[in-house]
């Protein structure tokens, strides 16, 4: 295994040290337990937003801490949800008296650890609401699964809820808009290669030079189906159609189209995916009102992408456009 790392055991700590150095003034980074907090937190009277999860998805979540988005991020070990202690610590660090919203991607581990932290926070009189993001249509949401996974849609939830908190909404309202975003966002991903987890040193799954894996998650989990590689339009159709049908998105909807890279795929390919997706949406008279292209929710060095659609209403558009100042997403400030 060749990686730009010091030691598989210190990957998260070393990257956090880099984050701290690179974003002084914007962030406070605490090493043990690892927590990334907005430099000016807690903000009196503002609802605090905390998210977190396993590392290996950078810039998620630390790259979204700052004005107009998250107040704190809690990075776990690579692909492993954080434990309750740092979540509790982050929650207390950002509580400005207006309560704290936990934004949790729907994985058993994340849900359970945030749940425990929320219980502990309540015991210390911090009001916590939790929104679980589950946008991945590759997984059927049924009694017989752990439910849909939270993937790239999480960024949209964090941005829009963060803007609501920044404009002064109360905890119930911020939670409500976060849930509304989650209810209107759907994603699906494809992998061309498997990620190499540092402590494992070998790819998380074997895949040949001419196969791709459809419906993958962001942890090197195998997907729903393996097929022969095909040109981008076919791949995009396989991702976008289940997304479109699930909500469903229909003619004359205004959407945010988010093409997300998985870490090892360069931007030039993401723009090609964007073009292919835009063509399919155009065919259905769905209007791309906002867009995002880049590697924001990654799976280490995996090659591939996900496509996320969010059905926008006017309030979501305004909150999306509102100023944001984080390491990874920044405009208007």
């Amino acid at each position, binding site marked *: 295994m060749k990686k730009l790392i010091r030691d598989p055991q210190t990957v998260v700590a070393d990257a956090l040290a880099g984050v701290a150095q690179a974003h002084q003034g914007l962030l406070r980074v605490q090493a043990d337990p690892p927590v990334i907090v907005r430099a000016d937190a807690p903000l009196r009277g503002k609802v605090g937003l905390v998210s977190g999860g*396993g590392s290996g998805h950078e810039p998620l979540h630390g790259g979204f801490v700052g004005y107009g988005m998250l107040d704190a991020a809690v990075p*776990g*070990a*690579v*692909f*492993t*949800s*954080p*434990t*309750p*202690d740092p979540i509790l610590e982050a929650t207390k660090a950002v509580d400005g008296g207006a309560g704290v919203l936990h934004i949790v991607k729907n*994985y*058993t*581990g994340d849900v*359970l*650890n945030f*749940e*425990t932290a929320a219980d502990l926070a309540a015991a210390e009189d911090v009001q916590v609401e939790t929104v679980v993001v589950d946008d991945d249509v*590759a*997984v059927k949401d049924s*009694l*017989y*699964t*752990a439910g849909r*996974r939270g993937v790239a849609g999480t960024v949209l939830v964090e941005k829009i809820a963060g803007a609501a908190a920044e404009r002064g909404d109360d905890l119930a309202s911020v939670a409500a808009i976060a849930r509304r975003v989650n209810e209107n966002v759907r994603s699906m991903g494809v992998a061309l290669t498997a990620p190499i*987890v540092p*402590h*494992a040193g070998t790819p*998380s*799954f074997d895949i040949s030079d001419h196969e791709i894996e459809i419906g993958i*998650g962001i*942890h*090197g*989990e*195998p997907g*729903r189906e393996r097929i022969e590689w095909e040109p981008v339009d076919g791949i995009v159709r396989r991702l976008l159609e289940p997304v479109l049908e699930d909500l469903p998105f229909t003619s004359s909807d205004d959407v945010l189209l988010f093409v997300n890279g998985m870490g090892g795929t360069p931007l030039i390919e993401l723009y090609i995916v964007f073009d292919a997706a835009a063509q399919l949406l155009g065919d259905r008279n769905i209007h791309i009102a906002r867009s995002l292209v880049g590697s924001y929710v990654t799976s280490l060095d995996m090659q591939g992408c996900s496509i996320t659609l969010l059905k926008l209403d006017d309030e979501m558009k305004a909150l999306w456009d509102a100023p944001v100042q984080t390491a990874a997403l920044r405009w208007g400030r």
Partner: protein
Amino acid sequence: MAGLTTDWALAWVRGSAAVVGEHRAELSALDREIGDGDHGENLDRGFKAVLAKLDAAPPSTPGGVLKLVATTLISTVGGASGPLLGTAYLKAAGAVGDATELDSAAVVALLTAARDGVVLRGKAAPGDKTMIDAWTPAVDAAAAAAEAGEEPAAVLAAAADAAEQGAVATEPLVAHKGRASYLGERAIGHRDPGAQSSALQLRAAAEAAA
């Protein structure tokens, strides 16, 4: 008949730590097939932390040992298995209370509480291809052995045997909980890593009593 003491509890935990360390790569490899490949790493990190705490301040009752394991796993493992196994040990600690010696009935109560703790948090049923599929047959076998008048060591041995068979029996299953549930039919043919690691811990419990 002598009941199981704090020394047994300590030996169990040290045994679990050793066996998880030995099987770390194997557990992660199982998890790579149908999950995200970190299960061995997660548990190993947790049990190493447990050992460090045990050495620093060894508790004086079996319940104290179990509680230390619980809190340490919860605060160091993360993932799904951290809170689930942590809750198992926490409820087990609650079940044995301040007792300094555990008879067969107490061992059954311990195991039952542990299993119920996992179900409480994880809501999995038998056959969902989770660690429950190791714990539930273990509890049943332990109860039957205790009923039959077996000593604690034999009760634990029966539990360990059943847990191992339970882990093997997860192989043909489709998963309904945890990450493996994302895979649908593709999970068939792979053993659940959490069931496997639970069987290892129960075997360690039996060997500590033997």
